[in-house]
């Protein structure tokens, strides 16, 4: 419908977080009755763009944005989510915002209840009016029926419902709002089964026919292609393409999403995995119950002296693997390191076996922020291997001499910018904190290093430095590394093999020089790829 009026028009949206541009001159529009797809890798800026549209407080707190939003033909600048809702924007969240103890009707009508006058309310206030439950239930039924999903009883409590049903309740609540003109769906099918997803996509089309504009965010490219009228591709905070659904393919979208020129020095000079290396780590049927990053039974091996990359989109389990092996998240399966079994769910066992981990959660798990640099460096080595200690009678005391020497050496080796070994790590910059995290793991003298999201939240220069450190540790000291990252480009720069996770399983193991399209397709679960190595593929 080319002639339909615009519901939403965002023009030249630019947003910086602390000097880091995350959105650069982004423009996007949604017409009445149109389903507009928005795709992009993690960190491409989708969430920030939606936060701006909804007036999330975080945007104003970090200095606002520049650009213009027109909603329903009028200038629109929401400062809090309430204003966005009042204007007629509905949002279906990834996490359910439902009250478990309430029935479907109560949830749908929460804060918009239909009420009748009664004696008390006449005397005191409208807040004391009686709920008109039958009318509310009828409205809820209408909203659920509009989705053409029969399985839900409007009187049933939400607690205990399958996640798919909850998702429909959530959507029903949004479309029950009378003035809704634009609905935003953020990965609505991520938690649905295939048949539920099909019903949902049908419902979207039906909603669109009623004249509602829909903004549809998804990682599943085939869905996007089948459902949307137009598709906008975001990459690194920029709109790289806007395509009509009929004029593009999944492969093209995948390429647009991940395709980046690999600039700077290409570190993966000898991209082939070391042929001679034997398998040091053997993982069999590992399942990890990590919230939001579930791993469902993966098997793989790591060769001595290689860097194995683990990539994939958020929520598909790439972070779960390292956390599971290290015993930090509940896991089951078998992990053998150098022929010896590592007992899962017991961090000490993994550490004692010679593994070390740099967590993706630098500020919470990686560091004791209020302790000094030197104490952070040696604490694990002290607890696990009993190093940096001095015996005084029956007691093992902290040996300040050896700790200081080690700290000074480390600061030099890793080029940590600090006022000295006694500086509290909270005061260090993100990049330097990350160097401390890696140095801390190296202080354990590990035989295998697991690194998760090593470059998250640090500036470009520091990213380069951190990658160089990992590269040097591997190529010069022969350290075997498993590196998990959302940044495909970085994995491709230093890894020998890259394992892509999809839906908690291994979707494929690719060499770093595989094409963009191949990576894109594997990441969006379109295709199971197996090009290097003899490992079984699940997914």
């Amino acid at each position, binding site marked *: 419908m080319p002639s339909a009026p615009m519901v939403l028009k965002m023009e030249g949206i630019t947003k910086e977080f602390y000097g880091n541009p995350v959105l650069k001159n982004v423009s996007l529009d949604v017409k009445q009755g149109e389903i507009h797809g928005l795709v992009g890798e993690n960190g491409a800026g989708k969430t920030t763009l939606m936060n701006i549209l909804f007036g999330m407080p975080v945007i104003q707190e970090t200095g606002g944005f520049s650009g213009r939003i027109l909603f329903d033909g009028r200038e629109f600048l929401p400062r809090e989510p309430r204003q966005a809702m009042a204007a007629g924007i509905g949002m279906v969240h990834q996490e359910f915002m439902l009250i478990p103890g309430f029935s479907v009707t109560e949830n749908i009508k929460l804060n918009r209840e239909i009420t009748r006058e009664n004696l008390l309310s006449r005397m005191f206030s409208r807040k004391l009016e009686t709920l008109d439950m039958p009318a509310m239930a009828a409205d809820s039924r209408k909203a659920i029926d509009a989705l053409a999903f029969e399985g839900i009883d409007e009187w049933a409590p939400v607690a205990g419902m399958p996640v798919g049903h909850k998702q429909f309740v959530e959507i029903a609540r949004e479309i029950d709002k009378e003035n809704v003109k634009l609905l935003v769906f953020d990965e609505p099918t991520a938690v649905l089964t295939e048949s539920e997803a099909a019903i949902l996509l049908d419902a979207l089309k039906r909603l669109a026919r009623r004249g509602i504009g829909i903004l549809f965010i998804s990682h599943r490219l085939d869905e996007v292609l089948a459902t949307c009228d137009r598709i906008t591709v975001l990459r690194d905070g920029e709109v790289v393409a806007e395509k009509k659904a009929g004029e593009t393919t999944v492969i093209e979208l995948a390429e647009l999403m991940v395709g980046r020129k690999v600039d700077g020095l290409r570190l993966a000079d000898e991209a082939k995995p070391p042929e001679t290396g034997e398998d040091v780590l053997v993982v069999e049927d590992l399942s990890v119950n990590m919230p939001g990053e579930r791993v469902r039974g993966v098997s793989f091996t790591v060769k001595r002296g290689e860097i194995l990359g683990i990539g994939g989109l958020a929520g598909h389990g790439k972070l779960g693997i390292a956390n599971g092996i290290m015993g930090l998240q509940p896991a089951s399966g078998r992990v053998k390191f150098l022929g010896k079994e590592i007992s899962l769910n017991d961090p000490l066992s993994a550490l004692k076996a010679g593994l070390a981990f740099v967590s993706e959660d630098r500020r919470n798990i990686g560091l004791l922020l209020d302790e000094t640099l030197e104490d952070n460096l040696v604490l*694990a080595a002290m*607890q696990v291997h009993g190093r940096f200690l001095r015996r005084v009678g029956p007691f093992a005391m*902290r040996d300040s001499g050896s700790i200081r020497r080690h700290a000074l050496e480390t600061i030099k080796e890793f080029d940590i910018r600090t006022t000295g070994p006694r500086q509290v790590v909270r005061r260090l910059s993100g990049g330097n904190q990350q160097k401390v995290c890696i140095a801390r793991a190296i202080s354990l003298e590990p035989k295998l290093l697991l690194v998760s999201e090593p470059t998250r939240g640090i500036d470009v220069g520091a990213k380069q430095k951190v990658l160089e450190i990992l590269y040097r540790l591997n190529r010069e000291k022969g350290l075997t590394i498993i590196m998990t990252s959302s940044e495909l480009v970085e994995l491709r720069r230093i890894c020998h093999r890259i394992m892509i996770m999809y839906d908690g399983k291994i979707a494929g193991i690719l060499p770093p020089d595989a094409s963009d399209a191949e990576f894109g397709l594997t990441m969006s679960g379109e295709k199971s790829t197996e090009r290097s190595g003899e490992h079984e593929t699940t997914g």
Partner: protein
Amino acid sequence: MRRLVEGVGVPRLLVGLFLLILFALAGLERLPVKMLISSALVRIGMNGVLVLAMLPSIRAGLGLNFGLPLGVIAGIVGMLVSLELRLSGLAGFFFALLVGVLLSLPVGYAYGLLLNRVKGEEMMVGTYTGFSAVAGMCMFWLLAPFKNPEMIWVVGGKGLRVTIPIGHRFGGVLDNLGKFSIGGVEVPTGLLLFFAFLCVLVHLFSFTRTGIAMKAAGMNPAFARASGVNVEKMRILGATLSTVLGAVGIAVYAQSLGFVQLYLAPLMMAFPAVAAVLLGGASTSRATVFNAVAGVTLFQTLLTISLPVTQSVIGGDISEVAKLIISNGMILYALTRKEA
């Protein structure tokens, strides 16, 4: 000036200034300042160990140990056993300590197990654990099979008395050990040395492998776990050490006081100790030996001197009121701030 304020902290500076004013007033009113200082020294020593008992609990991430009455009760039972055996002098005191410590070990361990089940609510649960234990022990005191007539009710011949005088047994054994007088100020050498000795022990413990592991577990459990520390074990250790120090603390307290107080006396024992360590600059998650020493010194000196001064200046006693305002105010202040 600004650095001084930041280094010492506003609460300590205010209390310090208030103390100076009180001392000045005491001089003007011609009160026996030297005697006041002597009694302040005794009160610092007698309360010091109870304040020190807060440290392991805070460091292990359990917050302030409001469950201190548990250790206090163990310590009291230790003293009762020593009295029952009619021991006296230093031998009687150290035997009481030994029994008290042995009893407090399983009590502290069980307390630690309990606190591991209520993560995040340690202080609230600790308060009521202490209260319940005190109430429960009231029955024990009535029924306990102690026979020594010094301890039981004269009438009826059964059940322990509310206050048991120990002056002739081991009352004042530490206070009088090596006691000397300098310029009219009496120094309870043994008492202060004993307190100092425990301070050094606690301080040294924080530099051991276990001490460091405990601190890491307290500051950031997720980090500690990832570094191979058994967080649950460290929390139990913190609760146990804190309870043991509570048992030692009450014995030191009682020998200075000259009485063992039973029944409801241990009920509020935790609060002055909590207030003192907070006044010394500790928070619910961070505390050093310095905080404990500075806190108990300021708090107890203030209590000692405010009574006579206010009595002579305004003719009334506001010391009890001052104690309540300062101790509860300090606790409130600390609990409303999450970070130190």
